[in-house]
């Protein structure tokens, strides 16, 4: 068990450190914290996170290519079904919660409840399931849920008036990447230097979240195969020296720290309807959606007890939900409320471990 927790050390260990500092700072010297956080918001959330999402996309592409860990579509069908079910369940329960309260001003926030913290969930899955195939299911489910969430927030609701013509720059970036790939360019730097800024400016000016900017060009980056053990064991060991996730390993730790520092600082007295709506969607709606989708799935290779634990593991939105909340609401009370909900979804992790104990799942069998 101890080994399980040790293996599950956070993928970005500095993120919770930054988050903890932010929460203490915001609640003791709020004005100075928010001044710093607001100054950091643009470089961290709009530029730094673009590299974080690119790294995540790189990991996924390496895992789903031909002959790779998650390539077999038969094994991918269940994660796809529960990702869709979980997203629908979260969205529906968020809307239902708002229906019974009377704060329709929070309606846009349903997207926040669709996010799953991939790294936290995978770490938790490894704690519970050790090296079971359930971990691969959790990885793919979490990634697919986040892809859905990114699609849902791709156009920022509060970035109205974007220049639609600027989308052409994104296509130009893809064309440049295609050309580089045609010339068999093996270094990722030309992709980042030439195509990256084009895509970023295109996103920024057209109203798409700039953190998504590198996603269209990541498929062209050089990459290597990912074995099932890379996912079930240490998620990061396969990396080659020239790969994006290796080169940016340390800068991304800094981004993770700053992300926690910039986004997790919320006034604890800000708990309000948005907090409960996100929590209800994550802790109730998503697990129910996951289980209903699994029930509708004809061939299941997992017991119901295992699926229940997977469903609660998938209820943790945490970092990704924080990111989504900054994309849905600008600074202010609605953002504070929903951020608190995002942070509180960590409770889902404790419920998952508790359920695993009670239902004798994985290590607890």
């Amino acid at each position, binding site marked *: 068990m101890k080994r399980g927790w040790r293996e599950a050390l956070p993928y970005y260990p500095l993120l919770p450190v930054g988050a903890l500092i932010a929460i203490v700072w*915001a609640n003791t010297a*709020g*004005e100075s914290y*928010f*001044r710093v956080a*607001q100054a950091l918001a643009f470089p961290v959330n709009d530029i730094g996170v673009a590299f974080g999402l690119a790294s995540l996309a790189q990991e996924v592409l390496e895992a789903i290519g031909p002959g790779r860990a998650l390539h077999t579509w038969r094994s991918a069908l269940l994660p796809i079904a529960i990702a869709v079910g979980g997203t629908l369940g979260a969205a529906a329960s968020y809307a239902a919660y708002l229906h019974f309260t*009377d*704060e*329709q*001003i*929070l309606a846009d926030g349903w997207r926040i409840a669709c996010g799953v913290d991939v790294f936290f969930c995978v770490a938790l899955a490894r704690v519970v399931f050790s090296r079971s195939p359930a971990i691969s299911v959790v990885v793919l489910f979490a990634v697919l849920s986040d892809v859905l969430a990114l699609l849902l927030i791709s156009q920022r609701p*509060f970035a*109205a*008036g974007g220049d639609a013509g600027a989308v052409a720059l994104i296509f130009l970036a893809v064309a440049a990447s295609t050309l580089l790939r045609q010339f068999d360019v093996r270094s990722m730097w030309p992709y980042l230097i030439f195509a990256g800024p084009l895509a970023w400016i295109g996103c920024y000016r057209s109203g798409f979240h700039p953190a998504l900017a590198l996603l269209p060009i990541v498929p062209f980056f050089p990459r290597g195969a990912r074995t099932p053990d890379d996912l079930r064991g240490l998620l990061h060991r396969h990396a080659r020296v020239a790969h994006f996730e290796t080169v940016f390993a340390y800068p991304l730790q800094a981004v993770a720290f700053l992300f926690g520092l910039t986004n997790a600082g919320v*006034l604890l*007295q*800000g708990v*309000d*309807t948005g907090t409960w709506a996100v929590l209800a969607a994550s802790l109730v709606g998503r697990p129910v959606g996951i289980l209903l989708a699994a029930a509708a799935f004809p061939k299941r290779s997992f017991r119901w007890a295992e699926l229940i634990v997977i469903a609660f593991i998938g209820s943790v939105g945490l970092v990704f939900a924080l990111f989504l909340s900054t994309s849905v*609401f*600008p*600074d*202010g*009370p*609605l*953002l*504070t409320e929903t951020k608190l909900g995002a942070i509180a979804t960590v409770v889902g992790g404790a419920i998952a471990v508790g359920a695993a104990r009670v239902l004798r799942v994985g290590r607890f069998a």
Partner: protein
Amino acid sequence: MIRRVVLAAGIAVALLRTPSVAQERSLLPNRPGSLKFAAIGDNGTGDQPQYDVAAQMERWHQQFAFDMVIMLGDNLYGSQQPADFVRKFERPYKVLLDSGVKFYASLGNHDNRSNDAYPLFNMHGERYYSYARNGVRFIVLDSNVLDSPQLEWLETTLRNANEPWKIAYFHHPLYSDGGRHGSEVELRVKLEPLFLKYGVNAVYSGHDHIYERLVPQKGIAYFVAGASGELRQGDLKRSTTTAAGFDQDRSFMLNEIAGDDLFFQVISRTGATVDVGVIHRKSTT
């Protein structure tokens, strides 16, 4: 004999609890030509206390003829169908509306976004807007969603405002000692520098269901008036920033701007004056 004493005491208490307008009207100067307005917040419950406050507003309006009311958000709670606009707004304030008083609303967290199109709120489809009256520039913000376009608009509006008085109002308070919500520090960091830079004199908000007047912060007067329908009794947690407050019953504000002075008087649901004072504007010349 005992019955008479009890009756007399009861009448005395009743008189104290509901002072006549005549007793209190001298507290505002009520000068001809001055700008007179009322302020209400968190009012739209449609319940009896809202109607009681509205009745007090009618009563005071007879002696202090304010011609506009600023609404600090949560103008309607719960369902917001056409019938609700009648029950929670048009009916309680019917006498005021019929006598030509105009209501200028800001949006609270319980208001639907589409309410900015409701004609009697005079928002003209804008969730943030500005208007000028008698040398006073009113800036109405949507503090639910304080995005970049709104901040840019605010700076432009303040920069171009030539009126001697500048008053901002919106739902979430930048300073509040309300126990339930308190100060919105995140908003303060964005708004206060602009208010200071362009000389905003007073800021009115609601959200906390109490009345509070704060000690002026960096030269700006702040009021929380969020108890014109809802009430969170005993929620005021007095601190060094509290200048005055009232959290035992519903209330609304009367205001008058005459020259360089802003007079205010806060009236409870039962008609008692719970705060009164004047803010003097520093001349910039």
